[in-house]
């Protein structure tokens, strides 16, 4: 079953899935931590953190990609020391994952923060009086009650990663088999004669993946609403 896709097109689809999976899994713990900080703690610099998290949503993706190149390129502030450790992002699929993670981060944190804020702090107080430490309160009360919302945030970030184009192509370029993700492949196909057919097929794959992600996210959010309403 090839859905009429050629090997290069399949490569782009599989690479995109790989990139989006790594981007989502890697940003999950950090996203949860930042969402919890923003939802539950008041500290100096909170507004700054909030703004920083949302920045990729507002900046042109090309600018975000260029900033990543400056920071994580081989001669970048973080890129140079990381390269000495053998960790390279620029023009690698891991770099695509980093770009996608950064671009999806605001969506993930936003959804998680909303679902964490919806958990009644009085339940957390009650758990504390029953002997649960703050970490155990988070793991046994806050997280389970906000889990569907947090998963919905992860699904949104995954969907965003599947479609990220601007920052990715700026940061890691468009190398078939290495950094050519689904959107990059579509873009390339539309630039060459006779590419319309494959481009359309990949577009349909992209639409199907996006709609699936949206449906999963909606179903999880509905479940979150039911669970919190049941208390």
């Amino acid at each position: 079953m090839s859905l009429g896709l050629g090997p290069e097109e399949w490569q782009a689809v599989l690479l995109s899935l790989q990139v989006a999976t790594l981007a989502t899994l890697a940003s999950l713990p950090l996203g949860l931590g930042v969402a919890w900080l923003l939802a539950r703690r008041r500290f100096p610099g909170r507004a700054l953190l909030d703004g920083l998290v949302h920045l990729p949503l507002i900046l042109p993706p090309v600018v975000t990609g260029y900033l990543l190149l400056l920071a994580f390129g081989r001669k970048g502030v973080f890129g140079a020391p990381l390269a000495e450790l053998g960790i390279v992002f620029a023009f690698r699929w891991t770099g695509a994952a980093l770009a996608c993670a950064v671009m999806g981060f605001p969506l993930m944190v936003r959804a998680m923060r909303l679902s964490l804020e919806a958990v009644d702090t009085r339940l957390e107080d009650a758990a504390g009086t029953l002997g649960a430490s703050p970490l155990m309160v988070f793991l046994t009360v806050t997280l389970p009650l906000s889990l569907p919302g947090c998963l919905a945030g992860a699904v949104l970030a995954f969907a965003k990663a599947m479609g990220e184009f601007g920052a990715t192509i700026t940061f890691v370029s468009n190398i078939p088999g290495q950094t050519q993700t689904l959107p990059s492949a579509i873009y390339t196909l539309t630039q060459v004669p006779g590419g319309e057919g494959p481009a359309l097929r990949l577009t349909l794959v992209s639409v199907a993946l996006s709609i699936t992600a949206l449906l999963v996210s909606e179903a999880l959010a509905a479940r979150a609403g039911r669970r919190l309403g049941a208390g």
Partner: protein
Amino acid sequence: MTDPALAVDVALRRGAFTLEAAFAAGPGLTALFGRSGSGKTTLIDLIAGLARPDRGRIAAGGHVLVDTASRRFLPPHRRRVGVVFQDARLFPHLSVAQNLAYGRVFARLPHDPAEFAAVIGMLGIEALLARQPAGLSGGERQRVAIGRALLAKPRLLLMDEPLAALDEARKAEILPYIERLRDEAGVPIVYVSHSVAEVARLADTLVVLDGGRVAATGPAETLLRRADLIPLHGEPGALLDMVVEGTDAATGLTRLTGQAGPLLVPDLAKPPGARLRVRIPARDVLVATLPPQGLSARNALPGRVAGLVPAGTGVLVEIDCHGAILLARLTEAAVRDLALAPGREVVAIVKSAAFDPAGFGTGRPTIAI
């Protein structure tokens, strides 16, 4: 001398509200009693560790929970102070059984099936274990919340208006469980309420709060008689410990005996020998100087005037009936006409219908601290 179950001496300022309270609580049930805004719930938060005092010290059974002088603050999860909140606060994602086990797990207590069975039996929640909190009635939730707090083996149990969110029928359903808790669980209880009926029925010791300060503290039956606390607790009244002698099927009246003398009250559906605490508000007691005749009231208790206390527009007459003190509220004119004075022999008349079933509780020797 052993340490009191709870010793509080704290000050806290929040905006225009100032709390400055010092009191001690012994074993049994201590009621924090006062109007809303008197600082009751703030005190509960301070004892549970959900708020920090500006200054002061709280110790439970010799364990210091907070002491600003030595900069000591034990977080809530290390205090072993159980709390039953007004809104049960059961965990909605856990079953009743999991809710009940929650505290035991974190207190690192071994599973004790006998203890578990005793607690759920006492609270009558055996049939609810597999249910989810969302499917429970308000009364059932509150009983599960009590069990959950109790199974964490707290050294002190705080109950913050646990009945306030319930209707009268549900209150009547839960009160007997709280009485059993007080008498059987062996955990000192601090019970917050603004209801005289609840306090009269449950409390051994009373701490009356007014505007963030302790207005009075002492044994419940003494404080509930005090005229100077009327603005705080409404109508004063006597608390009498009585024993059921029997119920007359023909008249439907239950006969009680106690220090003050026999009383006939509407059928209580209690077995002979059951102990009761009866509250008789002062306005429901009449005073006669001669044994009455041709009177519909059933209960006439001979006694002696022990004191006259001016109270607002009238006078509270304290009547010593064989050592138990009854209170009667009369007008000044009536006191003058009857020539009532300390030492005068009188008869206190209580209407049987005046007894409110909600005013009855299982009694026991009151513990004073």
